């Protein structure tokens, strides 16, 4: 068997469920959700001016929330609400009860600030503990936490969850890839946490250093903080032997720990006793039927310092109505491949970076080191995909390389329905990020 064809390492058997909440019968769960939701809405109404004004504008009070279905009548909260009330305008607790602040990376303008009471921090650790458990992690595992520590919620979120589980945490944070690989090897790391794009970079760098992850104890990876694809999962599992799990969260709700795949790798369980999911039509705002695809809207059910009622995530997914083979009763959502704000429109066609990734990885020999560059030439939008050349793609013959370019362009055109220019780039020429990968460079405003 060749190195790349080895199957990913099997999850351990016999681990114990860490939370009965994951297995609650549906009627009990709904009852709990309604109680918590009513408390949460009351708290938001009493303490968030923005929310109260919007409720009043619709002639609503917390008493109008009698069933879970009534939630659909309530106003949404959106990202700009957090910016507009920067920094503390949506806090529902006084600062003396707030034990932690985090802030988003804030790519444009001011960041958004989120708050936690002591209980919120405990809930966060609990949902992250359940996340690790769902991915087959247990006490005795050695967890290399390469999410960034700091204002970003990824680092500390994963840290306290893994500690709560009783695993050994290495708080290495992001960056310094050579040291990451040394630690992974020398400390006998069994579980890694980071962005999927950064792990791909680690695998590649390990290969250059003569380290084969198939030979190391590392077994599972909890990957999140950016959208990624099934093709990327396949690539990671094939090249490292590490089972790649998708985890989900956002700072506005709590950070990582909103949802996670289980070892079935068939959708992400939402920890519904703390976060209530709805799917809406992103155009009309109308609630959709269970199973229909739309924008995920989340309501916190226990977040005390900063309740979020009907927060529009911009993430496109659907709820999977069927029960999961793992036995958890908390519902699943499909892997989030698309964010409505990641989408760009080129010559009238909606394109998501994940579609580009899937099309590129469908061609044999490619690695997920790519970047999408949008420009405007003579008033017309142009899309170029830059992809690093690998030894598998490269040839001494011009014709063979042109053929590779044609194949890639063809695969992209098939997926997207528009012509895309493919540019082959030298290895390492596309910037590696220790955090979220920057996939799209839009130069269209600079080139009128």
């Amino acid at each position, binding site marked *: 068997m060749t190195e790349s064809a080895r199957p990913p390492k099997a999850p351990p058997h016999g681990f114990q469920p860490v939370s009965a909440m994951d297995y609650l019968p549906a009627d009990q769960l709904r009852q709990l959700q309604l109680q918590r939701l009513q408390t949460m809405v009351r708290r938001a109404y009493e303490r968030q001016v923005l929310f109260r004004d919007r409720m009043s504008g619709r002639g609503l009070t917390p008493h109008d929330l009698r069933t879970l279905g009534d939630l659909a009548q309530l106003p949404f909260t959106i990202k700009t609400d957090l910016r507009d009330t920067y920094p503390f305008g949506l806090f529902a607790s006084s600062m003396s009860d707030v034990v932690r602040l985090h802030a988003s990376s804030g790519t444009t303008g001011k960041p958004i600030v989120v708050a936690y009471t002591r209980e919120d921090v405990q809930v966060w650790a609990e949902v992250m503990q359940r996340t690790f458990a769902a991915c087959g992690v247990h006490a005795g595992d050695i967890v290399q936490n390469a999410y960034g520590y700091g204002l970003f919620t990824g680092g500390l979120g994963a840290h306290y969850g893994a500690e709560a589980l009783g695993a050994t945490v290495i708080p290495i944070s992001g960056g310094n890839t050579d040291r990451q690989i040394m630690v992974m090897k020398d400390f006998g790391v069994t579980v890694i946490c980071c962005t999927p794009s950064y792990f791909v970079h680690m695998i590649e760098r390990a290969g250059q250093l003569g380290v084969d992850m198939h030979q190391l104890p590392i077994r599972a990876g909890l990957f999140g903080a950016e959208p990624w694809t099934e093709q990327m999962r396949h690539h990671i599992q094939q090249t490292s032997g590490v089972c790649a799990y998708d985890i989900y969260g956002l700072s506005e709700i709590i950070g990582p720990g909103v949802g996670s795949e289980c070892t079935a790798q068939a959708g992400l369980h939402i920890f519904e006793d703390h976060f209530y999911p709805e799917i809406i039509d992103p155009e009309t705002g109308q609630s959709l039927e269970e199973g229909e695809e739309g924008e995920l809207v989340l309501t916190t059910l226990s977040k005390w310092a900063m309740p979020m009622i009907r927060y529009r995530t911009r993430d496109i997914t659907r709820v999977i109505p069927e029960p999961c083979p793992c036995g958890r009763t908390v519902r699943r959502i499909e892997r989030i491949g698309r964010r409505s704000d990641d989408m760009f429109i080129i010559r009238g066609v909606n394109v998501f970076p994940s579609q580009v990734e899937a099309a590129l990885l469908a061609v044999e020999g490619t690695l997920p080191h790519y970047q999408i560059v949008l420009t405007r030439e003579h008033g017309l939008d142009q899309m170029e995909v830059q992809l690093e*050349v*690998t*030894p598998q793609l*490269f*040839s*001494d*013959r*011009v014709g063979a*390389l*042109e053929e590779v*370019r044609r194949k890639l362009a063809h695969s992209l055109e098939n997926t997207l329905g528009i012509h895309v220019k493919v*540019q*082959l*780039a*030298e*290895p*390492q*020429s596309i910037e590696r990020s220790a955090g979220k990968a920057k996939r799209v460079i839009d130069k269209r405003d600079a080139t009128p």
Partner: protein
Amino acid sequence: MKIHQLSVFLENKPGQLALPCRKLAEAGISITTLSLADTEQFGILRLIVRDWERAQEVLRNAGCVVNVTEMVAIQVPDRAGGLAEVLEIVEQAGINIEYMYAFTDKLDDKGVLVFRFDDPDRAIEALSGASIQLIDRVELFQRLGIVS
């Protein structure tokens, strides 16, 4: 019987050729010959060096994408029609020539040709069957006047 050629991927922008050449120079590796194939989008640098294994390592460590190609070297009389006779044999065997290099033999009054065939094994068979003088790696560098 085969000669190893290295190819290196280059982006088509200024300064890209200098890096691999500089890395080889730093390692004390001398380039016997090179050719450059270029398109609007990218270039392919092809190199024949005596110590190809070490050169490959140097280039890989410098972050280049490097492939190894098997080439076939032959000796032909240095006269009119010398090359044409060889090409006829190759053509009759239905083998394609992707590209080639030509040198002057420093030992004899002959020419040395190095070919990239689409099927080097069949090419060797056809050429040796027609009594064309094939030359190996050691002899190639001797005939090109490269010692040590």
